[in-house]
């Protein structure tokens, strides 16, 4: 299984959507840190490099990161279908669940790779603003950008790591959903489109207050306001989608 995982990660980094996604995650913070309209958009004057990651995360989590996550999750299987290699792999005497299980682990890891890249890019972009102690907040902790007093570098880093880890968890159900659609449609484009459409549809469903607590989209900002119910729900969604994908794939005609 371990070698299968290493093999799957090797394939992941070769995917076009992953390469483009990681590049976008790296470049986005640089654009934001030096954008002339930043103050108008957020009413913010950057006082520290520790504030740049929050800007990237707010912007990325709005659409870009969910989209990139769905694309990558769909392509992990879709690329194998289009290359014809899925058949070759399935002809070998390994259980289908083992192959898809490795792929699911890989796609659930990808949001963290994406967000780590974004964080690294943000900190690099923040270097000109300094990464020392400052009065204010990272935007991802108490008091948002205004903060609650002086923030040390280690305190700022912890806030950023916690928020990015939560953001990764927020993206999990979308990864699992895109993987489920990839199993159903055996196509990158259809699966990514279906996953993003589902996300957009859920956003529209906020008009129904009764179901709002159960929508994924109600928890997309969980990284700034952690909520144990929301977190549990996201994990349940992820497990449900992943198990369904495994179940369907077991008897899927390839």
């Amino acid at each position, binding site marked *: 299984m371990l*070698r299968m995982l290493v*093999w799957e990660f090797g*394939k992941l980094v*070769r995917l076009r959507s992953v390469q483009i996604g990681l590049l976008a995650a790296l470049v986005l913070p640089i654009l934001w840190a030096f954008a002339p309209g930043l103050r108008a958009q957020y009413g913010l004057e950057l006082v520290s490099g520790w504030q740049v990651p929050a800007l990237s995360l707010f912007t990325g989590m709005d659409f870009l990161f969910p989209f990139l996550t769905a694309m990558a999750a769909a392509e992990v299987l879709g690329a194998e279908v289009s*290359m*014809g*290699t899925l*058949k*070759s*792999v*399935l*002809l*070998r*005497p*390994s*259980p*289908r669940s083992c192959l898809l299980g490795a792929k699911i682990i890989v796609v659930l890891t990808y949001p963290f790779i994406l967000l780590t890249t974004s964080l690294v890019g943000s900190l690099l972009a923040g270097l000109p603003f300094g990464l020392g102690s400052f009065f204010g907040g990272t935007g991802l902790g108490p008091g948002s950008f205004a903060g609650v007093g002086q923030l040390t570098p280690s305190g700022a880093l912890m806030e950023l790591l916690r928020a990015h880890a939560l953001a990764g968890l927020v993206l999990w159900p979308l990864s699992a959903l895109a993987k489920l659609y990839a199993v159903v449609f055996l196509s990158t484009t259809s699966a990514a489109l279906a996953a993003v459409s589902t996300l957009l549809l859920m956003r529209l469903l906020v008009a129904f207050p009764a179901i709002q607590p159960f929508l994924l989209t109600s928890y997309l900002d969980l990284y700034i306001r952690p909520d144990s119910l929301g977190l549990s729900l996201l994990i349940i969604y992820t497990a449900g989608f992943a198990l369904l994908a495994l179940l369907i794939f077991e*008897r899927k*005609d*390839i």
Partner: protein
Amino acid sequence: MGGTVATRTPGAALEAQQLGKKYGRKPVLENITLAVQPGEVYALAGPNGSGKTTLIRLLTGLAFPTSGVVRMLGQDIYNGGHLARRALGAVVEAPAAFYPHLTGRQNLEMAAFLTGLANAEARIREVLARLELLAVADQPVRTYSLGQRQRLGLASAILHEPQILILDEPTSGLDPQGISKVHEILSELAWKGVAVLLSTHHLREVSAYADRVGILGGGRLLEEVRLDTKGETYRLRVDDPPRAAAFLKTVPGVQNVSLRGVNVIFEGSPNVALAALVREGYQVQFLEPDYFDLYDYYRERVKNA
């Protein structure tokens, strides 16, 4: 899936029983029953759309039937039988699919890993040499020609020395030399006891070493032709063929006399037939063995299906 089929073909390496596949209401395959014994070469022939590829996907476990069962070495491949695929080597696409950024050797290493083949290095070198791919073994597969990819596919399929080999159009895209090489390898594997099932349009070539040919049409197995049991048949050309044919039917030792165009076809002793015709004053222009032409037979069979 339909009810369990209890009957088994004794000794069969690969067997399909009452196999059926529907997409929605449309049947693509119906009631296919076949068995391939160890050491036997079974060729599947049929026009495009007859269900050959679907049948191969069902036989290899890539797709699941609506009814029926497939067993490899007696083990049901659909119900927990992924281990039965240890015995299987297969190429189900033409050209065979590989990771294009990896070299031919790396692709084979991956296949060896997934099959659980230990100490694969020597065996990989052996199959690469057998398929004449050593010179390009360390080049990325994306630089391979169609024929090289097809040969790499066969190399991958025979890498773990399978007992069952299933190939979809194994000679597609190959030059005449490559086709001969593939046929030579398949004959050799069958001689060593491997059960070989392949789909093909090259009936004349495959009839040189296939034991049986299954003719598919409209999703059904129309007929199985056993090539090695065709009797000794002769044809002769003679003046007044209808009268000569009628006469030969009365000659003891000559059977199954028929007319095919201007030729008289018969089974039995050629010496007896020739002597009888000469004795009766017929002018015999030639007499020769009438080899079974699988291609002609196939065309006739599919046309009349």
